[in-house]
């Protein structure tokens, strides 16, 4: 069983540890503090039965006034030993719901590595994100990122008409084993 709840300041160190264990993109504690002291409702954690943090979502509101109000997923990860339980989906849904309700976001955006098929599957199929753009060399190691978006029905005023996926073809079948 996994306890999905809003994160508190007391969870940040464990979130950082989880991030360092799972992902190549890491942040100093100050960045986690910045998130929770700005948008506390958007940070969620998954605890295993024994109370250990095994997954988290770190998210924020973009403050660029020139764009419509929207949230952004800074980082999401679930420790390998706790996969296949829908934890990532649950965390994302919670954070997205608060973006929509608390901050009136019209949509949420995120970046995902082009090669990360499991994550792409989660976003595009399970959570209904669409590819908005490709950012060349977004990651430190030179890999490209998909810039993806998911519009919220209740707030989506600025949603553009359905457009082609910027000429992208998605190769290969997502590897379900890694989801």
């Amino acid at each position: 069983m996994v306890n999905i709840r809003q994160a508190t300041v007391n969870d940040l160190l464990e979130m950082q540890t989880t991030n360092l264990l799972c992902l190549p993109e890491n942040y100093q504690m100050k960045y986690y503090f910045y998130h929770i002291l700005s948008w506390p409702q958007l940070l969620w954690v998954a605890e295993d039965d024994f109370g250990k943090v095994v997954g988290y979502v770190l998210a924020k509101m973009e403050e660029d006034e020139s764009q419509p109000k929207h949230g952004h997923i800074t980082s999401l990860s679930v420790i390998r030993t706790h996969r296949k339980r829908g934890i990532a989906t649950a965390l994302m849904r919670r954070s997205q719901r608060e973006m929509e309700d608390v901050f009136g976001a019209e949509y949420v955006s995120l970046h995902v590595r082009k090669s990360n098929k499991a994550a792409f599957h989660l976003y595009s199929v399970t959570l209904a994100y669409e590819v908005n753009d490709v950012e060349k060399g977004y990651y430190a190691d030179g890999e490209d990122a998909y810039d993806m978006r998911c519009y919220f029905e209740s707030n989506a005023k600025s949603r553009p008409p359905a457009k082609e996926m910027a000429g992208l073809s998605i190769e290969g079948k997502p590897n379900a084993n890694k989801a």
Partner: protein
Amino acid sequence: MAPVLDNNPQAGAGRPLPKKEQDMFRTLQKHFDTKQYKKALKQADAILKKFPKHGETLAMKGLTLSSTGKGGEAQACVKEGLMNDMNSHMCWHVFGLLHRNERNYNEAIKAYKRALRIDNSNLNILRDLSMLQIQMRDLIGFEETRATILQLRPSLKIHWMALALAKHQTGELTGAIEVIDTYLRTLNEGSEELGRCIESSELAMYKNRILAEMPNNYDEALHHLDVCEETVVDRGAWLFSKAEYSIKLRDFARGREAVMAMFDRGMTEDYRIHSMYMCILLDVDADLCDKVLGLRGSQTLASMVPLTGNQKKVLREAYELDLQVRYPDSYAAKQIPITFLDGEAFRFAVDQLCRKHLSQGVPSLCHELHSFLWIERDDSLLRPNDPVDLRLHSLYKVYTDVVDGFISSLAASSKFAESDADEEPQTTILWAWYLRAGLHELVAEYVDAVILLNKCIEHTPDAVDVYLLKARILYKSGDCSGAVECIEKGRELDKQDRYMNNETTRYMLLAGMEEEAMKIISLFAKHEGNSEQNLFEMQCSWYELEMAACCFKKQDMGRSLKKYAAVLKHFEDIRDDQFDFHGYCLKKVTFRSYVDMLRFEDSLFGQEYYVKAALGTIHIYLVLYDRPIISESDEPDYSLMTSAERKKAKAIARKKKKASVKVEADVHEISEANGNHAKAPSAKTEATSFIEIDPLGKDLLAKDPLLEASKLSAVLVYSAPRNIDSWIARYDVAIRRKKVMMSLQSLYKARSIDPANAALFTRTVDFFVKRPFFGNLSDQSQAFVDEAAPTLLNDKDLVVFIQEAAKAASTDELTALPLRVAIAKALVETKAGSVVDACALIVDCGIKSRGVSVDTCSEALSVLKSLGSGAEQATKMWIAAVKAQFPLLPTFE
């Protein structure tokens, strides 16, 4: 004749610059404020050309220099400015700012206060002072300063917010509420801030929290929630508070409404909300409600206190007939009732759960099954973790029966049961073996587990999760290199997975392969230069702690200290990092999180990583103190000396060492300087310098070991007082410093945490063995020791105390192995018992007791060996018993 100097700005003390330079000075300030440092410096130099001693210009120049990373030059400049114009508030302010940048917060506060003496209504200085006061937790001072600021500028919202916050922090809850209310009354009707938005919502919920903190004030807090409902956009928090207060006021109908509304919002997987739901159904007391809200993981009210049969029935019906119907997608609603099932119903639920998860291949299934096991002890429920307790648990057998049944059926017909209609996919049997291996692991049947995992690998060689589990089990079996080999195979199968990379690194460090470990972790950490530096910058404490432990095992004390120091440094940085958030949160009004942050920072050095690093450091320094190992060859053997001789010899050794270190340091400094000139002029980051300076920890080795250990143990007992290891470390330091009272206090505190702790037992005996040699105590201390000490021995003689402990340990066959070993050692050392008694305590039941691991068994072995003649036979028996328990252990002798 009038003194000419009077009109010369260089004479200091407030003489004004001529008009032209005044304008230049203003431009200088403007440039500084807009971060155009080069231009600012140009202006400053231009003024100084004419008036080289103008204090405020010197100060501003210093401040600018400091912002461009020229700390040393800045210091000199600011100081010179201050000396030239001690009556300028600006000079003092800048002096304070410089201290602040250097993180000398107390000095900065002093400087600001001097500045305010000259200009007591300078808003900038007051604001800066208040930030330092909250940083240093001078709460009273913070409140005073914020009150002054508000008086000076009552028109700004931020000043009202700050005063409310200050009053809240000093415990003036009513005052805090008054400030908020007064502010809200200053707003015009229809003002945006009174409407529904994030700022008003945050403020309302903050006010609500203060109301709820007032004693017996849930009524008012609940009423306030109704008042602010329309303003609050944070519906989740609003509902949570509503449910909580209602339950505490025993208004269960209202509480239920709020709980259901939270479930409707999709918060069905938050177990604290389920606990509230149960509190409502079972009509429990308010204090129990407080307790369940502090639970973590999947623990709920139903697994916190033993429930009656009737209570279980009520809950079961509510879940099965109501929640599961309403929220068919909720995992929690399905799983929680398993906690209150027993007998056939429990078996059936487990059967269904396993079928589902085995088909899906969920690796954490065993973990989940483990979580359903509880032991009742003193009116509360505990989760068993020791293999001995798990083996004895009545429900454990249910698991093995169910899973064994699946395995034989799956092997025969690819179905969970013969009668099933559908066949399972190929992978199901793999996950059934995997689960069974996990169940073996719980009860320390490592060989059986490995056999099954080998079958898994044969079946599906690329099942990465299997390698993870197998590596862990091999490690627990004492086969470290086997664990490394196994995890490395798993890593090769999925090189993109950082978790596998990290686990490989960890097992390598546990196996003492630090070079290889660094290479592996660098695959993910190197892309920003030096990987050690990258890991330090990213505050990767787990790695640094493992590396420190690895170096310690190899007797590389310097490098070990250095890695522990890195972790300690992260926490100092985290403490200092909060500084920027004081001002930030005042603007954002995210006060609930902010107050949580203040509390978190207050107990920061009680966090697990810090405590581990501090304990590791203390341990090394004590080892060094007991037998210094600094210069391998020319160090005398202290153990052969009297204490006076030893002291003298140590002093000489220390001097020698200091001298040699100094030379090395000088050399280092020069080469550093050269390096800097050779390279780009960019300022070195703090991280670079931390990693590059003294990489082998020689400076750390040169420190006074007992002093360093003493400092850290003081931090630990303050910040982690509920951790018994803090007090054990405190004792170890105090007894070496001959601080009798402090030693005694440490033992008392440790005893209040866990009287059956083996380390405590050893220290207690140690104290009484050393007691006759304490020397002169003051009469008062002596009287206190005479009165207080005996209770540590249950008012017995030391010998009787040890004998009784031995008797108790041999009567209860589950007495933990480490305690048995501690008692055995004490028996022989104090001659309270024979070698035979001591051996029997370890050998007779030791291997079947609690706390058995490869490490504790090795410790037992070294104690048996130290007992000398009379223990040979027992030593052989122990080796045989351990080998039988851990057949995969490569060597044990």
